[in-house]
């Protein structure tokens, strides 16, 4: 998987918000808000290929969470990102 081009994470008055930009995203008018953890993951995988395991590693290295729980969260998050149309 990788993040789609032009989906830039911004800090808007303290909130993490993704807005689409660029010629290929003219019709994408949704605005996506992310919590701190999702934003942390997003920033670390911008523009790279990534797997579920990469995200799990990022989580367990940075937060006090075991791999099993991290994988559950990551699975749910990736589903969310897919349905939001921001990864491919």
């Amino acid at each position, binding site marked *: 998987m990788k993040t789609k081009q032009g989906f830039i994470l*911004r*800090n*808007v008055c303290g*909130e993490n918000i993704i807005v689409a*930009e660029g*010629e290929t995203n*003219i019709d994408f008018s949704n605005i996506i808000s992310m919590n701190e953890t999702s934003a942390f993951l997003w920033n670390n995988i911008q523009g790279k290929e990534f797997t579920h395991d990469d995200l799990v590693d990022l989580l367990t290295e940075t937060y006090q969470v075991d791999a099993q729980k991290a994988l559950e969260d990551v699975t749910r998050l990736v589903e969310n990102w897919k349905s939001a149309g921001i990864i491919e």
Partner: protein
Amino acid sequence: MDYYFEIAEHYIKISQLDGNIPLLSLLPSFQPFLCDAVSDEELLFGFTIDNHLKAVDKSRRHPIRTFDTGNGDTVVDKLSDGGYQYVVKNINRDACALLICDKDFRTCSCALNGSLNMQSFGLNNALMLTMAFAGSKRDTVLIHASLVRNNNYGYAFIAKSGTGKSTHVSLWLRFIPDCDLMNDDNPIIRLINGTPYIYGSPWSGKTPCYRKVKARLGAITQIARARENSIEHLSVVNAFATLLPSCSSMKWDADIFNHICSIVSDIMAKTPIYTLHCRADRHAAELCHQTITAE
């Protein structure tokens, strides 16, 4: 012949190379914004009307999109040098203006076509586009809003076309003391040292309200029709999602779009954003006034 205008405390120069129609006949709404000459360094942009201007060769541009503006189509092409070409068409899909700009919208040339009405329509729209995109680099945004002044603050109302922002503003003018209309369609917000101010402009939709006026921005309120009147203060995420689409932008140009997003964020840091769910009645105006002028 050169003409200078001051809009939102920015200076613009319009040079008319040819054409047999006097500029102010094409741009009657700009009359209140006429000002004395300034040096080229002080200009937000310079705009030349040159009816001999030709469309850029197809090998040096690629199409972005044709946008339906509600009053006609605007055809946008990106040039290989980073600039843009716009063709402004009216409701009958006749080309009224050809606009060619550099990537910063600092230097623009425009050819006009057709009857007085067509040329006037084309020129007004070409200037509005240029103002919006040149302004984005100078902490300035055009917002699709109706704007009322009360107690030296400007209160902007946004909504999808036809939802009744003008109607709501007319209720303020009728029932709230000491109010005046600053603009009814496209006022301009500008951050000065981080503080948002809102200005009248030469673009005011169907209401002829072209005023060189300025006020501190008090609040921005989205109007939504409802059976009962109520008002909510929007969270950051909702406020951003509400405000961003009301500001003139070009999301295919990362540079300009980034500027617009940060201006909107900076406006929100200093300005409460509301949604007013309302009927078109006196109580709606009173509830809104009482709430949004309290901050």
